[in-house]
């Protein structure tokens, strides 16, 4: 049963990657990165059980905790960018 879930997650990863490569806007790509992140958390959890080494859930936990920092950094980047351009206009 882990195999079924793993295959589904891997295929979804490929779909997310396709979205990341196709774009068309940069936000689609950020969305794909975020999707890829949650899928990685799931993949690591499932594979830890597939390998019968449940103590490796630590890895999934690490990703669950810090994966969204990248997206917050994107928000701050865009915010600073728009701020700077407003400054430049005035």
């Amino acid at each position, binding site marked *: 049963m882990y195999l079924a879930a793993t295959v589904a997650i891997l295929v979804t990863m490929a779909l997310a990657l396709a979205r990341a490569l196709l774009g068309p806007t940069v936000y689609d790509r950020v969305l794909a990165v975020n999707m890829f992140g949650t899928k990685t958390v799931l993949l690591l959890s499932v594979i830890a059980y597939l390998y019968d080494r449940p103590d490796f859930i630590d890895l999934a936990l690490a990703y669950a905790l810090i994966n969204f920092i990248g997206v917050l950094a994107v928000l701050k980047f865009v915010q600073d960018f*728009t701020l700077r351009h407003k400054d430049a206009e005035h």
Partner: protein
Amino acid sequence: MEVLLDIISWVLLVSGGAFVFIGGVGALRMPDFYTRMHAASLTDTLGTILVLLGIILQAGFTLSAVKLLAVMVFLLLTAPTAAYALANAARLARLAPERRALDD
């Protein structure tokens, strides 16, 4: 009892996988950014809950079950936050005077 647990986690894992997959298809096929985000984030949370619950049932009352629960709780906290931040960034940039610089 064992068999029942196995069946339930089978159902949870497979339906979780299905939801994850549907979310992926939605993110690929939807026509514009905001609808794609909707597809991705909505099924993301449901798929996550189902898959992780399925594994937790297999783990039983162990330390790893607690860790899995923590993974689930943190994912449910952080994934919508990321979605919020992303939607906000997109909205900010659309309103921005220099929109061409950030559009692809």
